[in-house]
């Protein structure tokens, strides 16, 4: 490769690199750094007031009534993460394993499982909201038509089922992503390894747990980290299906909704608080960054170079 010696070439590189850098600096780096700064100030509407130290952080974490909202939302995020881990990544792995055998029709199944992934979350959310409708929704109508009418219930209207109903909608929407990332990982396993395994054992379980699972570790790392980041940023599905307040009774409230309500207010109570909103954003951000780094390092450690 040529060394940088001509001033003309230096200028040319500058022309290439500066505009894209400026975009990232101005619209990603600067806002993220600012969010940290904003959290230490009192805000009156959109005007920055005086420096208040860790006051905003204290309020959202420990002062009533905000603290109870924050911890409730956090608990829901944690449950959503674990539920999606099973229902989205777990099922995704199973589907990938099935697709990997390349049986007749596998191509079609592959296209079908990924179809919902391209849909807007808003469309998915509204669609499932209509499906879950207590009287006219297709879920309850189906249950009644197969004689399970006793199980029909207001899925989104009661706090025992609301959050899980949203999780199911999310898993339906996104399961194709982990499935195809895992599938790509499996397809990179060398044939000789698989032949060697076939000589040793006939047990499908041994094959999955001792060979396939360790060898798709890089796919698992990516899929787990992305799910973690997504679960703690969760916003659109609960916003569309349960509303800004996380109804009923805050059972579907998550940090994303709470952050939006705190920062921009709601229709019913239009109090916007940029200081506390920023504090929440910073806490969520640090939590995601810290845990995602730990997960990445831990999972990378078990990846094997082929």
């Amino acid at each position, binding site marked *: 490769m040529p060394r940088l010696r001509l001033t003309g070439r230096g200028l040319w590189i500058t022309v290439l690199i500066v505009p894209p850098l400026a975009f990232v600096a101005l619209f990603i780096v600067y806002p993220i750094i600012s969010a940290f700064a904003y959290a230490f100030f009192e805000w009156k509407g959109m005007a920055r007031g005086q420096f208040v130290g860790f006051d905003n952080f204290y309020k959202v974490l420990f002062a009533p009534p905000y603290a109870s909202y924050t911890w409730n939302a956090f608990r829901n995020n944690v449950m959503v993460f674990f539920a999606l881990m099973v229902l989205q990544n777990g099922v995704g792995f199973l589907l990938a394993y099935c697709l990997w055998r390349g049986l007749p029709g596998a191509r079609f199944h592959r296209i079908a499982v990924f179809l919902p992934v391209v849909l807007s979350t808003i469309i998915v959310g509204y669609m499932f909201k209509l499906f879950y409708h207590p009287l006219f929704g297709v879920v309850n109508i189906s249950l009644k038509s197969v004689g399970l009418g006793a199980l029909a219930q207001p899925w989104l209207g009661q706090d025992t089922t609301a959050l899980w109903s949203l999780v199911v909608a999310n898993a339906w929407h996104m399961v194709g992503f982990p499935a195809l990332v895992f599938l790509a990982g499996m397809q990179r396993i060398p044939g000789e390894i698989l032949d060697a395994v076939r000589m040793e054992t006939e047990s499908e379980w041994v094959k999955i747990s001792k060979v396939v699972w360790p060898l798709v570790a890089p796919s698992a790392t990516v899929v787990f980290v992305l799910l973690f980041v997504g679960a703690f940023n969760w916003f659109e599905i609960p916003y569309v299906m349960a509303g800004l307040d996380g109804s009923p009774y805050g059972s579907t409230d998550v940090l994303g909704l709470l952050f939006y309500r705190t920062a921009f207010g709601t229709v019913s109570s239009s109090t916007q608080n940029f200081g506390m909103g920023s504090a929440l954003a910073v806490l969520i951000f640090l939590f*995601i960054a810290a845990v995602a780094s730990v997960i990445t390092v831990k999972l990378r450690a078990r990846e094997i170079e082929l």
Partner: protein
Amino acid sequence: MSAAVEHYGDRRGLLGTLGRDGLIQIILIANTVIMLAPIVIMVFAAFKTSAQIYQHPFALPDFTHVENIVKIWTETNFLRYLLNSVFVTGTSITLVLALGTMAAYAIARYEFWGAGFILMFFLAGLTLPLKLAIIPLFILMRDLGALNTPFSLILVYVAMGLPTTVFIMTGFIRTLPSELEDAARMDGASEARIMWSIMLPLVRPAMVIAGIQNLVPIWNDFFFPLIFIQNDNLKTLPQGLTTFMGEYNSNWGVLFAGLTLSAAPIVLLYIILSRQFINGMTSGAVK
């Protein structure tokens, strides 16, 4: 996978394989039904009256009953939202590809001080959830006078799309051979000319991948318009959807028609280009 069968020579093993493959086939078919059924029910419902939806949600509709779709097309701002989405997405992707390729080309083809650091700088933006910086972004857009204009969205989408685009393009441009480039340089071609006439035609496949990877999240984004756009005539499709879902909340036929029409563009595109979509959307995650 035919090799799998060969290794199970004895009869019991063969039956076991067939049984296993049967089970796998059943799982796949069941899953495909679950994946497609909601979409089919939605499309069918777009052609039904509310009463028909309540009574026979699974029945085949009369596809000549297009009243719901006409209603969405004529009585709502649907067409406006659609055009806004096309404009915002098209402009953003063009800019992302142009800027992303510029940065990637410089990083991949030239040796200069700080190149590694600049690549790291772009990659740092890869998983950062930009949603959490929405308050400063909101104030920044207000100061730029971009609130309530499509530019607020375009600026954010371009910045958001650059990290993955630079990542994909740098990886690809590095693999291109340097002979052509060197020959052109001997002949006295300028650096700009080498990039434009010789290298760019070669990177088109990677641009398709990067373009699709940006297309889906930008086309489907709801969060940034929710914050930046208030004017109904500037709303994008996902955001506009929330408007007419509220207006027609008792007429289910119209609601499903709205959902179907909103889903149609990207679903049709996906059906035509499914391979590119799958490659594009998983390429960031697959090494």
